[in-house]
C-alpha cells in the first residue's frame, strides 16, 4: 500500500469520500460514549434538565465519588473479573478440545455432533427449563455454576472448528509420525498455531461475560457474588426508587443518570485496554469463510 500517490484522481476522490463517510459514522458512534463520560462528570440536575449534550455541565466528581466509595462496587468489579476470566478460561478449556476433535474429518459421528451443535444456534429451551436444570445440577447460587453454565456456544465452536480444519494436514501428520498423542498434538501444535482464532474467541467470550447480567441475577443469591452488571442494575433500581421523595434538584450532586454513566465508564475501561491487544490478531482472521467451500 505504499504506492499511495499512484492513485488516479477518481481513486483519490473515492478515498476521501470514504474517509469522510466513515468519519461521520465513527463520530456518531463516538457520541454516546462522549455523552456518557460527560454525563458522568456533570451534576445530576444538569443531566436531568437535558442540559448535557456534549461537554460536562457543572463539572463534578460526585457520581464517581458515589460509585467508588461503595464497597459493593469493588466487590462486584472483582466478581466480574472472576467470572470473565474464569468463564473465558473454562470456555476455552471446553471448546478448544471439542472443536479440535470435531475438526478431524475421520472422527466417526462427526456430522451428527456438528449438526447437534449447530442446532443450538436457534433452538433453546428457554429460561425456566434452563433454570430448573441448573437447580437439578445443584448449581444455584454458585460461582462455579455461572462459570460452567455458559461455557460453550455453538458459534464459537464452529469458528474454532473451521480454523482447526484449515491448519495444514502435514502438521498433524508430522507430529503423528513423531509419536505425539492427540493431547500433545492439540496442546503443542494446534493451539499455538491457532492463536488468532483462539484470541478472537476469547475476546468474544470476554465481551459476553463482561456484559452478561441476566443469569447472574437469576442464579445467584449472595450479594458478595454479584457481577458489575447486576450491580449496575441494582443502582438503577435503587436510584429510581429513592427518587420518589428526594427531589435530586437540591439534595444530591449525582443522579440516576450520572451514576449509571459513571459505572458504565468504569466498566468499559478494561475492555478498552484489552481490545487493542486482541485486534492485532483479527488480521489473521476468523476463517468463517472457510466453511465447506
Amino acid at each position, binding site marked *: 500500500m505504499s504506492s499511495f500517490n499512484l492513485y488516479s484522481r477518481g481513486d483519490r476522490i473515492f478515498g476521501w469520500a470514504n474517509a469522510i463517510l466513515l468519519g461521520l459514522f465513527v463520530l456518531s458512534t463516538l457520541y454516546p460514549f462522549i455523552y456518557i463520560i460527560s454525563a458522568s462528570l456533570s451534576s445530576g440536575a444538569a443531566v*436531568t*434538565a437535558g442540559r448535557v449534550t456534549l461537554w460536562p455541565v457543572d463539572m463534578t466528581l460526585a457520581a464517581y465519588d458515589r460509585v467508588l466509595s461503595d464497597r459493593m462496587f469493588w466487590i462486584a468489579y472483582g466478581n466480574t473479573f472472576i467470572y470473565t476470566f474464569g468463564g473465558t478460561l473454562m470456555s476455552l478449556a471446553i471448546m478448544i478440545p471439542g472443536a479440535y476433535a470435531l475438526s478431524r474429518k475421520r472422527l466417526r459421528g462427526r456430522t451428527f455432533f456438528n449438526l447437534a451443535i449447530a442446532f443450538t444456534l436457534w433452538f433453546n429451551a428457554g429460561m425456566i427449563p434452563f433454570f430448573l436444570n441448573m437447580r437439578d445440577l445443584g448449581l444455584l447460587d454458585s460461582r462455579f455454576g455461572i462459570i460452567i453454565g455458559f461455557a460453550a456456544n455453538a458459534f464459537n465452536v464452529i469458528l474454532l472448528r473451521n480454523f482447526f480444519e484449515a491448519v495444514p494436514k502435514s502438521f498433524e501428520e508430522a507430529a503423528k509420525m513423531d509419536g505425539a498423542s492427540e493431547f500433545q498434538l492439540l496442546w503443542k501444535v494446534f493451539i499455538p498455531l491457532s492463536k488468532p482464532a483462539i484470541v478472537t474467541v476469547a475476546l468474544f467470550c470476554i465481551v459476553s461475560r463482561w456484559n452478561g447480567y441476566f443469569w447472574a441475577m437469576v442464579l445467584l443469591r449472595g450479594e458478595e457474588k454479584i457481577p458489575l452488571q447486576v450491580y449496575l442494575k441494582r443502582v438503577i433500581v435503587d436510584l429510581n426508587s429513592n427518587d420518589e421523595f428526594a*427531589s435530586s434538584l437540591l439534595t444530591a450532586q449525582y443522579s440516576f443518570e450520572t451514576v449509571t454513566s459513571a459505572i458504565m465508564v468504569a466498566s468499559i475501561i478494561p475492555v478498552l485496554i484489552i481490545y487493542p491487544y486482541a485486534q492485532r490478531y483479527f488480521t489473521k482472521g476468523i476463517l468463517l469463510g472457510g466453511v465447506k467451500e
Partner: protein
Amino acid sequence: QETTKITDDPLELTIHFHFRDKYVYSEKWPVEQKAAELTNVHVRNVASLATTSSRDAFNLLIASGNLPDIVGGDASGGLKEDFIRYGLEGAFIPLDDLIEEHAPHLKAFFDGHPEIRRAISGPDGNIYFIPYVPDGKFSRGWFIRQDWLDKLGLKQPETPEEVHEVLKAFRDKDPNGNGVKDEVPYFAREEVDAVRLINLWDARVSGSERYGDFAVYDGQLRHPWAEENYKTGIAHVAQWYKEGLIDKEIFTRGARSREYLLGNNLGGMTHDWFASTSTYNDALSGKIEGFALRPMLPPKTVSGQRFEDARRLQVQPAGWAISATNEHPVETIKYFDFWFSEQGRILSNYGVEGLTYEMVDGKPQFKKEILGNKDPVNAQLWAVGAQIPRGYWQTYDYERQWTNKIALQGISMYEQCNCLKQEFLGVSLNTEEKAVYDRYWPSLLTYMTEMQQTWVLGAQDINATWDVYKKRLAELGYDKVIAMMQSAYDRQYGAAR
C-alpha cells in the same frame, strides 16, 4: 406485662422475602432484632440479593420448588394471585383455622375489616396470606401553580370550562415571565395521570390505584375504558392536547418529568402524590421566586359532582404466607399475629424506640434527627426494617409526622370534600375464570391502552372510531371477561351486598 414470647427455646424460621426489586429481609435490621428478642422467633432470609426483580425472584423460588418456612414480599403485578394460586395447589397452607385458634389480633383485625378479608380470600374462601394493609385514603390529588394563578389574576378552576381557561392562560400569558411561550400547562409523570383530566367528564381512569383496573358501577363490574363518558372525556382531552394544553411529551417524558418541568419553572398543573409533590415547594423556594405549588380540590365535573379517582389501596397485594413444608405453622401464625399486636404495629410502623422514635404522651414520635435528615423518612425506616411490605397494618400517623404542611392541608381538604370514589378491591379467580382472564385480558388491556394514547395524540379521532373500538373489544372477548369477572365478584362480595 403479658409475655410476647412465642416459644421458650429460640426458634429459627427461614424466609424468602424480596421487595421493591432490590431489598431482601435481613436479620440485621434493628426492627427484626427487636422482634426476635420479643418473640424468640428468629427469621433468616434465603432470598437472593443478586436479583433486581422481585417478580423474578419469586417465580424462581417457586420454580426451584424448595420453599422456606415463610414466603413474602412484593413484586410487580402483586403477589396476591400467586399466594392464592399456589395455595390452592398446595404450596401454602390456608390460615383461617390457625387464625381462629392462635391469632387473636389477626382475628380481631379481620373481624373488623370483613371487606379486606373478602378481598384477599381465595376462590375457596380461604385466606392464604397475611397482607400488608396500608392506612390513609388519599394518595394523589390535583396540584396547581398558585403563584401563576395569582400573577394572572385567576382563581382555582372549579369547572371543566374554568380548567380550560386556566390552562389556556398558562399557555398564552407567559406566567413564568421569561418571555418565551415554553410553559407546559398540564403535565404528569405517570400514564394514569396523563389522562386524569377525563375525570372532568365523569369518566374514570381506573377502578383502583392499579393501572387500568376494573370498576364497580352499582354492583356491576365493568371497565371504565369501555364506558360512554370515557369517549367524551378522551375526546376533550385529545382536543386539549391538540391545543397544546397538555404536555406534548406526556407519554414519553417519564418518571423525572415533574422534576424537570417544575425545576425549570415550566409546569403549571398536575395530578400527583400529595407528599412528594408538596416537597417541591421547599426544594424550589430558593430557586424560583414565589414558587407555590398548591393542592386543589378536584374541579366539578360536567355533571356537577366532584370526585377523586385515585386513592390508596386498602390492601396491598403483598405480605407473607406459610409454606406447606413449614414444621411450625402455629408458631409462625403467632409470629404473624405479633405484628398486628400493639407492640408489633409500633415496631413495624415506627421502628425501634430510642433509635427512630421516642414515646411522647404515649404516642410514638419520630426523633428530630430522623425528621431532619436529608434522606426521606420512609427510606430511613426501610433501612431499619420498618415500613416494609410484610404482613402488617400501617398507621397513617407515621406518615403524617413527616409529611409537609402543604400536603397535609391538601389531604384534609380532600377529607372534608369526601369525594373519593369507591375502590375495586379485586377478585380471586378460580381455575376456569383464570383461564378466561389469561386468555383474553392481556390483549384487551394492550388494545385499550394503545387506542387511548392513539386518540389522545390525535392519530385517530375517537368519535369516528369509537364503534370500531367497541366492536373490536367484543371480538377480543370483552364480554366474556366481564361476565367472568362479574361471577367471581358476586361469589366473593355477594354476601356483603
